[in-house]
């Protein structure tokens, strides 16, 4: 599809969407009326910048069904995102939403090289979380065999992977690493299993994690991006080139904005990713702010696809720390630490303010085999990390070497930052 054809399609769909939400969702109608906007003002995709944004807080304020555009009789499924802070987010899907979801998810899998001959294990959690069922229906829709393994009981899962000759797996990258650990603990190697494709997503990951997973499980790992507010897994996907993730932009229209000024940024610049669900019926969203920070890549990909790509997520707009005026993301520190075998992949950033000057301390655990009785060598290890951090972060950080297993491990999403400045 040419870019002009895509824009025309997006414009047509956007106009239809705006009409839908204006007439069915009081929240959007009120917002548009406040801005003196009528659905007729939105004719082309460029007109999207006139529309209001939607935030996670708006979703919470309208809990549970306030943003739903379809009548309850049309809703055939509901998912909910974890409500770690406040109300969970409830998303209702119509039958057509589910069919589009299966379709976009199949596109992702097909781009990874999955075919009907594959047996694919879905190891995202099944349930209210969109990961499990979302990936599941994509696998079935493509014609491959779905194994709804979900998470937990990993030894049994490894036996199934071996005995059924499972060739692909969809899971979080950290579960993939755990799986590799269990495979090794069971006395097996990557040669005993036939996994060839991994669809990894639902949490940020780095190139070094990709290398490690690929090495230990003997597969090729692809990024699968999605978020439950928009649809679930299937929003964007890597191709064989692995240079950014192609966005299913005929359904999910992406923009990058400056999170402070809310101005739209040109392609290539890093900012907050915003999506408009062009075809959704259950809970369509206008310009939903994902808080994920990335940039868009335009131009045709060497793989032949013409749809726009997003770079890997560099951080979350709410994770971003501003230290001495410099933007710092915990993921930057993480990638430095993952590249140094002397350290465990556990770290904590402590931000503080002394004499009106921001300070950053990076606590990191020394691997047992790298501990030395030689103080000089220990101090050199510390300096190597602080030098590397300085070159990556462009501010200096104080490194604190910690004993193995001394940094608190959190269940689920790891907490990596303690910002003591807020309290002062």
């Amino acid at each position, binding site marked *: 599809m040419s870019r002009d054809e895509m824009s025309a399609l997006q414009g047509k769909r956007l106009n239809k969407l705006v009409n839908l939400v204006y007439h069915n969702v009081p929240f959007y109608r009120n917002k548009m009326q406040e801005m003196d906007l009528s659905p007729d003002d939105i004719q082309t995709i460029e007109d999207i910048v006139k529309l209001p944004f939607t935030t996670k807080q708006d979703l919470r304020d309208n809990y549970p069904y306030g943003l739903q555009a379809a009548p309850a009789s049309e809703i055939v499924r509901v998912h909910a995102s974890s409500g770690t802070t406040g109300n969970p987010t409830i998303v209702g899907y119509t039958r057509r939403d589910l069919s589009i979801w299966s379709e976009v998810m199949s596109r992702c899998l097909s781009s990874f090289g999955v075919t009907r001959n594959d047996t694919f294990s879905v190891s995202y959690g099944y349930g209210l979380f969109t990961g499990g069922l979302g990936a599941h229906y994509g696998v079935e829709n493509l014609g491959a065999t779905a194994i709804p393994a979900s998470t937990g009981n990993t030894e049994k899962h490894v036996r199934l992977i071996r005995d059924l000759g499972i060739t692909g797996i969809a899971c979080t990258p950290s579960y993939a690493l755990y799986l590799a650990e269990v495979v090794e603990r069971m006395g097996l190697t990557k040669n005993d299993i036939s996994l060839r494709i991994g669809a990894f997503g639902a949490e940020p990951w780095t190139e070094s994690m990709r290398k490690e997973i690929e090495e230990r499980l003997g597969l090729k790992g692809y990024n699968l991006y999605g978020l439950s507010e928009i649809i679930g897994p299937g929003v964007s996907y890597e191709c064989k080139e692995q240079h950014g993730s192609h966005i299913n932009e005929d359904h999910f229209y992406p923009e990058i904005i400056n999170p402070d000024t809310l101005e739209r940024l040109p392609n290539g610049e890093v900012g907050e990713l915003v999506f408009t669900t062009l075809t959704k019926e259950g809970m369509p969203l206008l310009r939903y702010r994902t808080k994920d920070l990335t940039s868009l890549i335009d131009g045709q990909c060497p793989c032949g696809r013409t749809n726009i790509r997003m770079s890997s997520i560099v951080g979350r707009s709410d994770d971003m720390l501003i230290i001495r005026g410099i933007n710092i993301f915990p993921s930057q520190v993480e990638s430095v630490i993952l590249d140094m075998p002397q350290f465990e992949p556990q770290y904590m950033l402590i931000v503080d303010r002394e004499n009106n000057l921001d300070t950053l301390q990076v606590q990191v655990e020394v691997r*047992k085999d790298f*501990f030395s*009785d030689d*103080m000089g060598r*220990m101090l050199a290890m510390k300096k190597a990390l602080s030098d590397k951090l300085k070159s990556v972060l462009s501010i200096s950080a104080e490194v*604190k*070497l910690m*004993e*193995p297993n*001394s940094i608190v491990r959190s269940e689920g999403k790891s907490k990596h930052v303690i910002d003591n400045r807020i309290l002062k």
Partner: protein
Amino acid sequence: MTIKQLSVFLENKTGRINDVTKTLARYGINMHAFSMAESTDFGILRLIVSDVEKAVEVLRSADFAVMLTDVVCIGCPNVAGSLSKILDYLAAEHIFIEYMYAFAQGDTAHVVIRPSNVVKCVDLLKKLNCDVLTGKSL
């Protein structure tokens, strides 16, 4: 003629040395000598203990980062100048000392030395008729 010294990596935190000594006490391991090397955020606790293998085992299972280092332990008369004489001799023979610690009581002082070249250091000390201690004589 060398002695296996236990080195433990410790975070600078109140009570952390106790965690090591408590673990050793629970398994009836006696400490003959120890010293603490510290930097701003961490320290290296160096110990000479009665049962080094067991100490490594119990400390590792309590999640401590532990390693063994060869050191030389000597006994010398507890009088002015006796250590100076030994160190002069080692320096003249180009033995570099990474660290040392000592304890004197009664007629004898015990000195633990971590030299750059352990084997050569032991040979030199024996030539000097120094009392080089073994694990058994501790």
